[in-house]
């Protein structure tokens, strides 16, 4: 069962790749697909259902891909932090570093026919669905090459051709919307599911229970994923929820509690949930995860939690470190090779930022585009109604 070594020399060609091509996450690293059997960090805890096994199958290829994807996301979010402090990103910026395993593990269990919808901490989910770094940075900086052409901003990333429906600023709204996507999938007989992500803060929203009730009544293929990073902005879960066992809050709906820092556990749970939802209707997944940054760039994140807690999680549970250790202990790559991947990823991010900085801001005429899908030749006005008028196409 000799595992082929990851050859770093084959990677040098990638650095000469033209920057205009979409920088995708799916690069072949190790091509070894010999199955490796592992166990998740902890067993799953189940509510109203039988937990899946904690034994998972993976491959060197998959593990290295996970490593690269998460490293890219980590680097991207840290770079966004710097850009925000340099005032190139304005308004809201909610960073996902620490939670990468959820986005990556979920994507590994799904196809692009399945839908994902999330809240405002959406940069990495967008990347996992096939978005590019340029689209991310350009959107954050309000440029034309952004995924929403600069008109959305950090909280409004979308990628409809990959069935990624955003990107929502109103806490909890995305859950009924996600159940609506699931309704439409069932109506269209698409044999696919929707993952609607929300946080521990949103878990107390009434509309979530309204949507879950309807989804259970109508047997919709909806998976509600609570990304429990234990803080709803500055409020710890025990101060906001009488019952912080979010996987049980669905009552009649089954639920599973998952170590959200273990990408293999996330993948296993999502695979299980998808199968369940297609047959039996809605299920809740609670991902026990953690964000290193504060709620947003306006929040230092240290007034309501101790620095020890944050460093503790970083040392004990960091998702990238977990995969690094797995790769090294199974001899799938050397330390240097992994460091090289991280360097590569850093360069990709830097290149994308440079490109995004050169990208122009939207044309003034864009103020008036996309108000409607069908504008009917209606007139719209700017602040000076006599000067700034447009006909909506």
């Amino acid at each position, binding site marked *: 069962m000799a595992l082929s070594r990851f050859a770093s020399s084959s990677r040098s060609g990638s650095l000469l790749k033209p920057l205009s091509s979409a920088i995708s996450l799916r690069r072949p690293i190790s091509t070894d697909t010999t199955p490796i059997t592992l166990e998740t960090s902890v067993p799953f805890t189940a509510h109203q259902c039988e937990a899946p096994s904690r034994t998972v199958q993976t491959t060197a290829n998959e593990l290295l891909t996970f490593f690269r994807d998460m490293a890219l996301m980590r680097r991207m979010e840290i770079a966004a932090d710097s850009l925000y402090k340099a005032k190139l990103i304005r308004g809201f910026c909610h960073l996902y570093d620490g939670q990468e395993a959820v986005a990556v593990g979920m994507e590994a269990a799904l196809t692009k026919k399945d*839908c994902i*919808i999330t809240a405002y901490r959406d940069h990495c989910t967008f990347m996992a669905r096939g978005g590019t770094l340029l689209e991310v940075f350009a959107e954050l900086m309000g440029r034309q090459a952004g995924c*929403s*052409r*600069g*008109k*959305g901003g950090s909280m*409004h990333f*979308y*990628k*409809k051709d990959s069935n990624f*429906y*955003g*990107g*929502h*600023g*109103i806490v909890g*709204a995305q*859950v*009924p*919307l*996600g*159940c*609506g*996507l*699931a*309704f*439409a*999938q069932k*109506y*269209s007989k698409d044999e696919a599911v929707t993952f609607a992500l929300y946080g521990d803060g949103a878990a107390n929203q*009434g*509309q979530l*229970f*309204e*949507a879950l*009730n*309807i989804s259970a*009544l*109508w047997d919709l293929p909806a998976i509600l994923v609570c990304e429990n990073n234990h803080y709803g902005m500055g409020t710890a879960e025990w101060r906001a929820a009488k019952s912080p066992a979010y996987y049980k809050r669905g009552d009649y709906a089954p639920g599973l509690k998952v170590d959200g820092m273990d990408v293999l556990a996330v993948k296993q749970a999502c695979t299980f949930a998808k199968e369940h939802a297609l047959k039996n209707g809605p299920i809740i997944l609670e991902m026990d995860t953690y964000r290193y940054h504060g709620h947003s760039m306006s929040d230092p994140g240290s007034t309501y939690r101790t620095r020890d807690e944050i460093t503790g999680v970083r040392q004990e549970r960091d998702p990238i470190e977990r995969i690094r250790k797995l790769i090294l202990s199974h001899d799938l790559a050397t330390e240097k090779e992994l460091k090289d991947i991280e360097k590569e990823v850093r360069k990709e991010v830097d290149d994308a930022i440079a490109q995004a900085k050169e990208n122009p801001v939207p044309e003034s005429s864009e103020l008036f*585009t*996309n*108000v*409607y*899908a*069908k504008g*009917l*030749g*209606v*007139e*719209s006005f700017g602040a000076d*109604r006599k000067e700034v008028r447009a006909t909506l196409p």
Partner: protein
Amino acid sequence: MLAIARQRILGQSFQKIRPAVSVLRSYSSAAKKITVREALNSALDEEMSADPKVFLMGEEVGEYQGAYKITKGLLEKYGPERVLDTPITEAGFTGIGVGAAYYGLKPVVEFMTFNFSMQAIDHIINSAAKSNYMSAGQISVPIVFRGPNGAAAGVGAQHSQCYASWYASCPGLKVLSPYNSEDARGLLKAAIRDPDPVVFLENELLYGESFPVSDEVLDSSFCIPIGKAKIEREGKDVTITAFSKMVGYALKAAEILEKDGIHAEVINLRSIRPLDRTTINASVRKTNRLVTVEEGFPQHGVGAEICASVVEESFAYLDAPVERIAGADVPMPYAANLERMAVPQIEDIIQIQESEGYNSFAFVDTVVCAGNASVNN
């Protein structure tokens, strides 16, 4: 006289008692009369038949046949997968409807009255209206939110508000309000076919009223363009704008004003957003006077926008200040006499002749000309 011809078509299931009520052409050339209810029902029926992506959702729309019987017979005809009874959870089911529209279906979401839409207003505005813009065109939302709006009779403060101006202020929404059966059919069909979110404001008290409709209106392809007002009655002395039930009042007022020599031009807005500023301004440039009529609260109302538009675009043509007639600036009272005072009546519209503008010299001249044939000039 008007011939009333109606043919019933039996639904798919013969066990159920109620068939889908459909309006068919008769072979006579006389005009037919249908109620607004029948107009809405037939519009829904035809659009559901034409496009399998259209589905209905709301409280009591299915087995109860619709709280106001607008969706009568549709469950039998199209089945429970396309006509969905929801629990009383507006925020939840409206969000689900918008999500289904994101995916490409065409939901028609009923609010039992638009008062309850406030529970779901975040989804109407933030999830539906703004999505096409925020996503730079990736996510369009072909959804219709419909239901009765405004005052009914004796239902009190929480069940009587008009939401036209709230929704019409929001870019990304289209807001329609039919008056008669032709409007109801044509605008609802247009709304369902439109790729943008449409708020469709009906009126409970109009559901049972009959109006004549031509063969063209009854055709399944009939559609009224969104954004175009209709001049219901031509006139040269004053422009009266109205929508929904107030169109009927304005028309009756115009008849009475006619006897006093005032020829009012009555504009049925049909579309609150987009507002047909062109038609309104063209009319005011002809008549030189504007009166806006609405049932809703006066402050920041539909009339306020129309007045501002006319003052901006046609100031030089105005012979008198613009005037607004609106509901009283109070929550709707229950007692019948107070309720009557809280909503515009025909007498309130006729009162415009007492206002300053009509006592001005120029206008009196015209009246005298029309009335007595003695010409001052």
